[in-house]
């Protein structure tokens, strides 16, 4: 897929909570085709403490309105500065980058997202829906304000929720949600979130012999396979998460699970 370097214009910046916001970006040209799981490398301007671009997933694309959405969690200076972007300001993106989720050969799947790990999941859910693949969505977080976009997800499938403190959905870890008892009824588990969470999901999936894909968030410099900084250990040696990922099947990864 052809990659672009473009200035996009902020058309919305919606705060979901203290920590999360959704940027809407548009362009006078038609946005290029983007696939679920792909991401953009965003340039953060006006912050002396941010030198490199920041990788952020494609959260959703509304081709009718020509708007690209990104869901971002504020964790440091880069994401903090992005959170202050105002409508009509521009932001420079290198995109779309990376591979996509495997949606072949399945009819009934489950998507699990923890915290900002739900970012790539909405666009995936939309694609599955278009392909008439039945999707079940599992969202998790520490507390209810970490459960994002549940309403949006409901458009594409049944939604199950876990919070550590029980303030929304079931109480407990996302990996213990009751739907996980039925994991073997699904043909594939897609998941994204903190590494420890993904490893637990991967271990369960492996044990129950359910195909499992994870989206990794290794730190990146270039995002285009040039620097070799973002590698993950795979059965075929070190692979760049930015070009051969971010989505990996857990069978490829050398995880101790």
């Amino acid at each position, binding site marked *: 897929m052809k990659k672009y*370097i473009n200035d996009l214009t902020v058309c919305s910046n919606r705060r979901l909570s203290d920590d999360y916001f959704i940027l809407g970006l548009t362009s006078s040209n038609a946005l290029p085709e983007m696939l679920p799981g792909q991401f953009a490398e965003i340039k953060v301007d006006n912050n002396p403490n941010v030198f*490199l671009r920041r990788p952020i997933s494609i959260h959703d694309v509304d081709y009718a309105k020509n708007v690209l959405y990104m869901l971002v969690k504020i964790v440091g200076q880069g994401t903090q500065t992005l959170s202050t972007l105002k409508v009509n300001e521009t932001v420079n993106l290198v995109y779309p980058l990376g591979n996509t989720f495997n949606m072949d050969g399945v009819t009934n799947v489950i998507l699990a997202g923890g915290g900002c790990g739900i970012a790539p999941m909405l666009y995936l859910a939309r694609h599955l829906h278009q392909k008439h693949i039945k999707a079940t969505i599992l969202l998790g977080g520490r507390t209810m304000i970490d459960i994002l976009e549940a309403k949006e997800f409901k458009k594409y499938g049944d939604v199950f929720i876990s919070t550590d403190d029980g303030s929304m959905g079931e109480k407990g870890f996302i990996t213990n949600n009751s739907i996980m008892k039925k994991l073997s009824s699904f043909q594939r588990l897609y998941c994204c979130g903190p590494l420890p969470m993904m490893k637990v999901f991967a271990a369960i999936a492996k044990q129950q012999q359910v195909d499992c894909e994870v989206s990794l968030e290794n730190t*990146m*410099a270039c995002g*285009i396979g*040039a620097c070799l900084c*973002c*590698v*993950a250990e795979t059965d075929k040696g070190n692979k760049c998460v930015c070009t051969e990922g971010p989505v990996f099947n857990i069978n490829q990864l050398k995880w101790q699970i």
Partner: protein
Amino acid sequence: MADLKVKIGALEFKNPVLTASGTFGYGPEFEDFLNIDSLGGIIVKGTTLEARQGNAYPRMAETPAGMLNAVGLQNKGVDAFINDIYPNIKHYNTHIIVNVSGSKLEDYVTVVEKLNDLEHIPAIELNISCPNVKQGGMAFGTSCASATEVTKAVRAAYHKTLIVKLSPNVTSISEIAKAVEDEGADSVSLINTVLGMAIDAESRRPILSTITGGLSGPCVKPIALRMVWQVSQAVKIPVIGLGGIMNFTDAVEFLLAGATAIQVGTANFIDPAISEKIVHQLDAYCDNHRIRAVKELIGGLIV
């Protein structure tokens, strides 16, 4: 349109803008963003005799106006380069230069012998300055004796243009430059990365798996510029300058300090189209300053 041509040894470059090893892949990674053929040359990823997995992740840390890397020469080895990569890039209408790395003297020699035969590789850059490998690498480039030894051996084995890439982690880079000049290097390029370190104060751990790594980006520019200035006064062979070049003004500064050509490194990560832009802006700078040939800028610092 100024005349942008420069010469390194017998080799003429259409312009002085090359891309630095390890920051531009092999070229194809950047084809969506610029016209590779517009560049003076590209220097491909450090290539070793055997395939190398490189260091463990994490390999990167952001620092003030720069970054540390600890990639550790991950590459598929020279044979894979020749068989799998070279055929896909040899059509480029620009000079493709292979950055040759190694941990043993014999390895360097074996690699360059293999590269001798590649028609579209007119030069190599001998990397005796990689700070990210346990054996060899920078060790070769931090003493005159070992720099002499490896350059001599490679010079005897390699028949085309030989560029030796120097380490900034030394007391006197001019002395090392003179030593490799004496052994017949056609050019020296500098600087490779500066050895540095980053720590996460919250977790109290080093950020890189290797604890230390190589610093690059604008933060090292003043150091690189000083070294290019010192070396270009110490040697007669052409100097290729790099370290923190982000835009055409930086490029001009390196030429003025004495560089015959420059390399764009870390900047490729911030703007993958920057190297071609620098070519065009250099041209415009020359026109604005009524400079007919970019050569006139080389060492043109008014002191």
